[in-house]
Structure formats: structure tokens, C-alpha cells
């Protein structure tokens, strides 16, 4: 089943509330997916720096002194903000690849959840309420974010199998549904040099969009291509550095409700997820059409 949510703020005054609003939306969707939960939040950017969100099954061992070990290996200064099993490493943008490469040698059990100037990603096995509490999501500020509560169908219940999936800088995707051609598509993407962390069908969808955007397409064009190339059932909510997109397959069995006010665009698998948002009583509420790309972008609006 799975529950997905997303919130794209137009009113900057709401930005300090983003984490709290998204947490509440996600917790409301618990009974659509109690296996695992995750959230991606696009926060403020520090010019010249990039955030690498990492996860470790043994955070006490892996995160202690990690900044010193990275510095010794790469000569780069790293700021670490650890939150339970995750840590956000802030590094100079030109040192990202060196740090990623060094991580494999220094702490092989560490996994990279996402990389970007704005995005931070937190996901774990467990109930959404526990997951958002563990990472203090409610206190986080940001411009937009997406979240997912998972009922596993296509692959194992693990931290890596939780959503959102991030396969490119500041790009992430949550998925409700199941893809039937993900194995074939994964082979084709691997041939193009894309690497995968999991056997999950949703990671293939994320990687497909990343590959399309690498070819120069904007998110809207990448999503349009997905309608031809992805086979199966899906409702996707995707985030980019400044954008927010929604796409449903042509059959559109998987539920979706959207709401828009002057202050935000919101997505929920069910209306219940939106019921607590400010001004929802007077919002324009609609069900996104099948095979139709919906896309908002702060950069284009500005």
C-alpha cells in the first residue's frame, strides 16, 4: 500500500514549520505502511558547501572521530551533525567526491543516503512516529520536503529499502506502487554507469529520473519520459533542489490527493494527511490526473 506525502512551501513564513507539518502528515499515513519511514527535507544552503547524509548500523563506532579520519585521508575539513543512526556531513562542494571515496575505506559500513547543497534524508525501519522522533524532524526548517511510510512489496524491509531514494545531487523520490520492468531497466541503467544500493524497484525509478536529468532534461521532461519507459503502478512524488513534482501512471490505481493555497502545494496519499495543514478548509483540493506531470519550481517562480 504505502503512504506518501509532500509539501512545497510558497510562503517563506511557513519554512520554520516544514518539519513539523511533514512529520504530522507522515504519522497520519502510518496505517498505509508501518514497515519503515523516511523523509527528505530541503533546508538552507551554505554557499560553497554540500551536505552528505550518511547512515551507519553502528553509529557510535562509525561517527566518533569520523571528521578527523576524513581530514587525515583527504585533507578536507568536515562538520558532522549526528542524529541517531544518521549523520549529516557538511563539506566543501569541491571535496564531495574525495570524501565519498574516502568513506568507503575509512568506514565501510557507512552508507550514503543522499548528497546535495540543500537536501537531508533520514530513513529507518520502524513506525513513522518513532522515525521522525529519532531524527528530530519536527524541529527542522526548510522550503520543501517529501516523506514515505512503507509497506514492503518488492524488496526487503531494511533501512536502505526505505524511501526516499536519492540517486543524484539534491534529487529524491518516494513511490507508492510497484514497477514490473525494474530489473530490465536496472540492467540498462547499469550499462550507462549508474550504480545501485538495493534491489528495490523504487530506486530504479529514482535512478531513471537522475539519468534523464543528467542528459539535460528538466524534471518535467524526465517525468514525461517515465510514462513511456516505466511499466507498472506508481504514484511518484519527487524533489529537486528547488522543485517538486508529482506523477501517476495511466491506470492511476494508487491514490493521490493534492491541495494548493497561496502558501503551499501539498500532496498526500489520502486527504487525512492534508487535514491538519493551515488553511486546508479553503484550499483548492483535487485528485491529480493519470499520466499527467505536475511540477512546481521555486527557481522558475522567482
Amino acid at each position, binding site marked *: 500500500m504505502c503512504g506518501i506525502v509532500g509539501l512545497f512551501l510558497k510562503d517563506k513564513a511557513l519554512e520554520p514549520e516544514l518539519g513539523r507539518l511533514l512529520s504530522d502528515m507522515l504519522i497520519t499515513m502510518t496505517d498505509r505502511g508501518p514497515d519503515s519511514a523516511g523523509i527528505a527535507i530541503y533546508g538552507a544552503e551554505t554557499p560553497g558547501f554540500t551536505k552528505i547524509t550518511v547512515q551507519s548500523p553502528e553509529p557510535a563506532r562509525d561517527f566518533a572521530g569520523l571528521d578527523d579520519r576524513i581530514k587525515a585521508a583527504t585533507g578536507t575539513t568536515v562538520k558532522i551533525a549526528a542524529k541517531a543512526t544518521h549523520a549529516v556531513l557538511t563539506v566543501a562542494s569541491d571535496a564531495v567526491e574525495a570524501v565519498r571515496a574516502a568513506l568507503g575505506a575509512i568506514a565501510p559500513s557507512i552508507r550514503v543516503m543522499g548528497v546535495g547543497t540543500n537536501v537531508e534524508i533520514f530513513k529507518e525501519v520502524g513506525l513513522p512516529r518513532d522515525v521522525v522522533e529519532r531524527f528530530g524532524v519536527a524541529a527542522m526548517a526548510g522550503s520543501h520536503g517529501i516523506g514515505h511510510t512503507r509497506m514492503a512489496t518488492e524488496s526487503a524491509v531494511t533501512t536502505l529499502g526505505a524511501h526516499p531514494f536519492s540517486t543524484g545531487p539534491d534529487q529524491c523520490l518516494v513511490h507508492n506502487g510497484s514497477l514490473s520492468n525494474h530489473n530490465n531497466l536496472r540492467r540498462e541503467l547499469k550499462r550507462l554507469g549508474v550504480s545501485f544500493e538495493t534491489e528495490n524497484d523504487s530506486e530504479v525509478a529514482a535512478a531513471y529520473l537522475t539519468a534523464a536529468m543528467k542528459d539535460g532534461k528538466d524534471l518535467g521532461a524526465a517525468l514525461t519520459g517515465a510514462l513511456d519507459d516505466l511499466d507498472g503502478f506508481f504514484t511518484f512524488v519527487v524533489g529537486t533542489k528547488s522543485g517538486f513534482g508529482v506523477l501517476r501512471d495511466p491506470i492511476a490505481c494508487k491514490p493521490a490527493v493534492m491541495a494548493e493555497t497561496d502558501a503551499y502545494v501539498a500532496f498526500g496519499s489520502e486527504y487525512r494527511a*492534508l487535514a491538519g495543514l493551515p488553511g486546508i478548509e479553503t484550499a483548492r*483540493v483535487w485528485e491529480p490526473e493519470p499520466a499527467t506531470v505536475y511540477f512546481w519550481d521555486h527557481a522558475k517562480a522567482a
Partner: protein
Amino acid sequence: MPVFDLAVTPLRALNEALHTVGAGSNDTHFDILNPRGAHAVAVGIDQPLTVAVKGSVGYYCAGMNDGGSVTVAGSAGPGVAENMMSGTVVIEGDASQYAGATGRGGLLVIKGNAASRCGISMKGIDIVVHGSIGHMSAFMAQSGNLVVLGDAGEALGDSLYEARLFVRGSVKSLGADCIEKEMRPEHIAILSDLLAKAGVEGVDPAAFKRYGSARKLYNFNIDNADAY
């Protein structure tokens, strides 16, 4: 008049109360506050109760209704009035997927738009949609009437049996075995009656087109295999 505030009262208590109203009871009007998209609001009513829901509901509102009169002052999630037997369900806003699915009787009125698969497998229910309906509506519909004042999406009436479909606006495409049919006086009479019951005024029944089954797929015939 019982009032149930779902912000404080569990849904189960509401549905239990609706199920335990005895025949001849005077307390037959229920107000429901703060539904906030809750699922299964007012399901399984089997008495002539009047239920006013003040807000939007989630999945399966008024499912299996048998004789109740349910009004939702908001929108409804998937499966509203699914398998209705008799009575009336009115949605003031929009309805999500498969509204009125498998309904055997009664009247479902949607004052906004309905999404995909409206009236799928309907078996006697009457559905009147003031706005438009989505794709695959009336799929395998067997009997009853679907009236649409707006437009219909792709594959209307795919694999249709004997339900009557009346559409005033455009139809994106017809499904397998669904064809446009002549509007005869008896169809104008049926439609006029349904429009009146659904509170539609000032609309000419002659402005609608009627769609029904070509009856080629009733029995398997190898010559029709491509049409399935």
C-alpha cells in the same frame, strides 16, 4: 438529534450507534463533525436514517447503505457508497475513484467531479455526477443509470452489460463494446426523473447522449477476440 464529533468520539462508536437504531425510533437524524478524511464513515446503515457529515471523508463512506440518506458537506475518498442497496448518498464536493462501485440500488449524487472508475460494476444503482468523471467509468456495469453533466474520460463503459450511460459533455473514448445509442422517449423520461431527484434544474435531457452495450462480448466468440 445525536451529534458525533469524530475529533473526540471513535468512529466505531458512531457506526455502532447507526447500526443499533431500531425501527420506529425518533432519533434518526445524525450530525457528524470533524471527519477530517476518516475512513468508513457511516457504513452499513440499514434504517431510514438521515446523516449529515460536516467535512470531507476518506475511503468507503456510506458503503453498503440500505435506506439511509447520507450527505457529505465536503469531498469523498475512494469507494464512496460502494455496494449501496437503497437510499441516497449526496457528496457536495468531489469524489475519488470507484464511486458507487457494485451498487445494487439507491441514488448517489456527486455535485462536483468524480475520478476514475465511477460506477464500476454497478448493478442497479443510479449515479448522477454534476461535474465530470474520469477514465474507465462504468467498467463492466451491469444495470442502473450513470448520468454525467460534464465530460467522461477514456474507455467509458468498457465491457458494459445493461447499464444506461447518459453524458451531456464530451466522451474522450468509448471502451470495448460500448456504443452510442438512440435517445428514445422512455430514456428522456428516465433521465428527467433522475435529474429531478438529483436536484438538477434547467438542464434539457435532450442535450445528453446515451451510451450502452453493443452486446457483442456477452458470449465468447472467437471473431470478437480482438475486442476483449
